[in-house]
């Protein structure tokens, strides 16, 4: 044992290689290998007649992504991801700002747990909660009725494009649940970015006669931007690939995640499912590059 230790100590590169070998083997074979399998599958195609996958090189599957129905799915998903990201940024900011600038000691520790708990705790359960809240006979309808706003709810539900028979089967309901489940992912990086804003800058701005709101707009917000972008990576990426939220709370118009799930499942069309995931991957690749430019990675 001792001889082995000495042997490795004299050869640091060999030691490093040994340490790295297992994790790299795992990630390389299992994960990168699987990603390759994904790419390969996307160049196969499903024979409509036999229902079997034909394992011969073809671009047919990729071409079928351009069918209007498929483009529609992609557009719906990306629009949702953008709106959810925007709403999360607006909601997360006041909480993150309060945590970073005003909270201290016990309150701060409590707030940190208050954000971390929903961040890590069961995502599925949190989606399910909204199924209960938004149900036609559920809490929200009751609450709005008590406040005399039933008419307003009916009005919103009748709006084309976002309404539906009830909130729990409408695009609006899908939106609310998405905003809810990804919100902690936005709070944490914004808070981290705000913690790093030097106090002296804010004081200098005030000393020079700026109104607090002007300081907020000209100093704090620009410096918080990397945090917002860092958070948006998660809200955007997670929305693009999700099938649980629209599956639980949406109407029948599918999102990318649902399309992938359906094609690989009963339809047995793994090639099309594989090609479909290229959309979120391509979007995220561009997004990550832009985010890197905006300095978001330092805020992660």
């Amino acid at each position, binding site marked *: *044992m001792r001889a082995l230790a*000495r042997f*490795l100590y004299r050869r*640091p590169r060999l*030691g*490093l290689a040994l340490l*790295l070998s*297992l*994790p790299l083997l*795992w990630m390389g074979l*299992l*994960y*990168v290998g*699987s990603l390759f*399998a*994904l790419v390969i*599958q996307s160049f196969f195609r499903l024979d409509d007649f036999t229902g079997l*996958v034909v394992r011969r090189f073809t671009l047919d599957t990729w071409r079928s992504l351009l069918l209007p129905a498929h483009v529609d799915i992609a557009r719906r998903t990306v629009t949702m991801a953008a709106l959810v990201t925007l709403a999360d940024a607006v*909601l997360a900011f006041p909480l993150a700002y*309060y945590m970073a600038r*005003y909270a201290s000691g016990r309150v701060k520790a409590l707030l940190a*747990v*208050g954000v971390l708990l929903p961040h*890590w*705790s*069961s*995502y599925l*359960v*949190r989606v*399910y909660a909204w*199924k209960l*809240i938004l*149900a036609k*006979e*559920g809490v929200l309808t009751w609450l709005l009725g008590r406040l005399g706003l039933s008419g307003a709810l009916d009005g919103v539900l009748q709006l084309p494009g976002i309404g539906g028979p009830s909130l729990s089967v409408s695009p609006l309901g899908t939106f609310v649940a998405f905003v*809810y489940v990804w*919100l902690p992912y936005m*709070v*944490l*990086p914004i*808070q*981290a970015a705000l913690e790093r804003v030097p106090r002296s800058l804010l004081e200098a701005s005030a000393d020079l006669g700026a109104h607090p709101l002007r300081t907020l707009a000209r100093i704090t917000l620009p410096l918080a931007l990397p945090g917002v972008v860092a958070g948006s*990576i*998660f809200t955007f*990426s*997670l929305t*693009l*690939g*999700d*099938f*649980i939220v629209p599956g639980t709370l949406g109407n029948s118009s599918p999102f*990318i*995640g649902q399309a*992938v799930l359906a094609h*690989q499942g009963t339809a047995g069309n*793994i090639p099309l499912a594989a090609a479909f*995931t290229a959309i*979120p*991957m391509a979007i*995220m690749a561009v997004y990550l590059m832009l985010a890197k430019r905006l300095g978001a990675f330092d805020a992660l």
Partner: protein
Amino acid sequence: MRSEEKAPFLLKLAAAAVLLFLHAPFAVILLYCFTTEDASFVFPPPGLTLDWFRVAWERPDIWRALFLSLRVAATATGAALVLGILAALAVHRMQAFGREAVSLLLVLPIALPGIVTGIALRSALSLGGLPFSFWTIVAGHATFCIVVVYNNVLARLRRTAASQLEASMDLGASSFETFRRVLLPNLATALVAGGMLAFALSFDEVIVTTFTAGQQETLPIWIFSQLTKPRQRPVTNVVAVLVVAVTTLPIVLAHYLTRETSTVEGAHR
């Protein structure tokens, strides 16, 4: 540290409202465990009962799913601990370039949408003609759990003084001994924290699992399958509360074990 300054009332109100928004849904889940109405989500509940806990207790399908999830989470956490600590130890000694490459590789499974990892594994299984099994679920989970352990351990390594390790070696300990007697005790709480977060992550993962489980039912998959069934809905709530309870303790513990390493490590999936 800045408590001498008072927050504007509106800001306090907004922060409190967002916090309420984050937590109120849990109360709704809990309340519906006790409702006597089992086919709709009518509010307020027409009556309250404890009976659904008994019903849930007597359902063998729930127990099966629970045990499968616990076995998967324990095995995946074990694998993630070993692979995560190895990767962290290696990256800690590496040059900037290799370091970034390894970090990127490890974080990719959680930076890309979950369906990408899921359908990638599914494609590989189909290409290789491999059947679904317990191990296909574990393989998927371990892959995205490694980064959690890795982040926590690497952060702790950066704060561990190199002089301690040098002193140990100067006093004649081999590198294995130094690892076991000096480095490992230093890393212990970071490992426990990373392990607990990995466990919580695996225990309620559903997206990747959908693609690697085949006909097997983990607890989250069981819950998802119940969402479309109109009978005995409060039983689903009892299970949901159980899942929250099982994951909450590790999360809070992990938070306190790594608190001194400031806010960032492990904050992101």
